[in-house]
């Protein structure tokens, strides 16, 4: 409690200092900002003009190499490439699968994260810390390896099939199915979600939980009325990061998913490389970006709201 109080005081004193113009602050933040502007902002902007049919200037070379390029017919460009993509039945299947996998995996990851974190917060046992440690391991495994390991584990020659064959049961090959993508997405997203949520839960003071217990509140009430509401911000941050990560994922669906329909991350790469249709590829990238931005706004809104509540702004 003492540490909590002093923290509040510190935050209070911070709230007094208003943001002010500072040349030094801006100058120090310039290097990473420039790097991002030049190598992320600029390509995205040029790519956006290309998706609208601007084929001159920096887009000249790619327009010559690529196939099925639409050239602008209005001053602002053309939506022809967008219409191409939305009339492609393959894209609609991909979009459906991408949204399905993203929503399902995110929900499962957050539920697992909540279960483990709540358990760890209420009962400090050996099992709880083992669970958290286990869940964090994937953070340190390169995603190429995770994808390939999961591929071999659930694949035709995999452990599950070989194990069940001992009992005469023919276990299905999960590789090349949407289920495998969900398994892989959960596997790789779990560590960050657990770290975020459990850190939020650990920050809830014991006194609150003890007081509720003394008043005879059942565990479900403590969870629903204290733990989850007070850790809301970290939970939303975990959910938005997980969803954004899965939405644009590439390696996991490439190794684990079916060929058709596939997730948009893989299809963007297919359209760009194998099919040589860069314009349509970029259109898909912007559609994914639009979805990711929606999630990112949720994240920023939740952060700012929690900062306001604690009096930091």
């Amino acid at each position, binding site marked *: 409690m003492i540490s909590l109080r002093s923290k509040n005081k*510190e935050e209070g004193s911070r709230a007094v200092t208003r*943001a*002010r113009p*500072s040349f*030094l*602050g801006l100058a120090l*933040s310039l*290097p*990473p*900002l420039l*790097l*991002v502007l030049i*190598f*992320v902002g600029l*390509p995205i902007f040029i790519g956006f003009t290309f998706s609208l049919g601007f084929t001159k200037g*920096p887009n000249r070379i*790619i327009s010559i190499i690529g196939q099925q390029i639409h050239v602008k017919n209005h001053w602002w460009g053309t939506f022809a490439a967008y219409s191409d993509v939305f009339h492609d039945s393959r894209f609609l299947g991909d979009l459906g699968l991408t949204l399905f996998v993203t929503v399902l995996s995110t929900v499962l990851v957050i539920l697992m994260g909540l279960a483990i974190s709540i358990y760890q917060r209420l*009962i400090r046992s050996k*099992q709880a810390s083992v*669970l958290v*440690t286990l869940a*964090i*391991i994937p953070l*340190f495994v*390169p*995603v190429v390896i*995770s994808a*390939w*390991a*999961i591929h*071999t*584990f659930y694949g035709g020659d*995999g452990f599950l099939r*070989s194990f069940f*064959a*001992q009992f005469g049961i023919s276990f299905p090959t999960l590789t090349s199915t949407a289920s495998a993508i969900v398994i892989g997405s959960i*596997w790789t997203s779990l560590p960050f979600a657990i*770290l*975020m949520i*459990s850190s*939020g839960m*650990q920050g809830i003071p014991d006194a609150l939980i003890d007081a509720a*217990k003394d008043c005879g509140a059942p*565990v479900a009430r403590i969870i629903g009325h204290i733990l989850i509401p007070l850790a809301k*911000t*970290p939970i939303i*941050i975990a959910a938005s990061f997980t969803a954004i990560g899965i939405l*644009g994922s*590439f390696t996991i669906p490439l190794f684990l998913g079916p060929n058709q329909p596939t997730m948009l991350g893989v299809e963007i*790469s297919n359209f*760009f490389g194998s099919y040589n249709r*860069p314009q349509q590829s*970029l259109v898909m*990238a912007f559609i*994914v*970006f639009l979805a*990711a931005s929606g999630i*990112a706004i949720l*994240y*920023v809104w939740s952060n700012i709201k929690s900062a306001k509540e604690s009096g930091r702004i």
Partner: protein
Amino acid sequence: MRTIFRPARLLLNLSVLLMAFFILGPILWLAAHAFVSGWQYPHLYPSGFTFTWWSKVFMDSALKTAIKNSLILSPIVVLLSMVICLPAAYAAGRMNYWGRKVFMIGIFSANSFPKIGLFAAIATLYYTLNLMGTFVGVLIIQLLGTIIYMTWIPAAAFASVPRNLEEAARDAGASKFRVFRTITLRMAMPGILVAIVMSFLASFDEAQGSYLVGAPAIYTMPTEMYSLVQNYPIQVAAVFSILLALPSVLLLGLARKHIMGGQLADGFQLK
């Protein structure tokens, strides 16, 4: 509450077991393949044990080059990222300047554009700048992936250093530089360490962008994996996976305490 009755305890142990199976199963299964001569369905045990796959990897010059490239690239990327981002992180953590929030959110939203789409879009710029298939080109791609870690996590670490400690040291006559070095920097060190580890992993594991920009001229270990899984027996991929995971496991030992202690989680709460 502390005394759990028996069925609950059983359920708990079962869920720990399931979790261990879910997380460790695939890694151990793949790792075991590095030491076997063959392993086919429906046999639960391999047909024999061997070390030949290891010598195969170390004899293959393409694989050796990939290992060398990765080991040279990643440290440079992390160092560059520190030089570029840490001053900005300090400013974002300690100075309440105009545009600070825009800066933090800008870095974040740059990170939420689908990576594969960005790499497709970046090709145009790379052709113009003659960066396609170059060492510098791959370096920049990997650098981009480290920025969010190297700004956000240290910014939170710098912000949480108590001001009164610094003021006390100043009152006792310590110079500004000494206060920064012995108090501010030292207290922010765990956060910076976590940022270094995360950046190293981000760079060392980056596959999609390095492949699109680097291949076929420059292969790193993860991009080599893409062709490895298609063209070599699974055992070679298993050996390579163990080698690729080694640095990460070492770093895990180094930074586990701080990452689990909340430095990573704190870094992603916008303040």
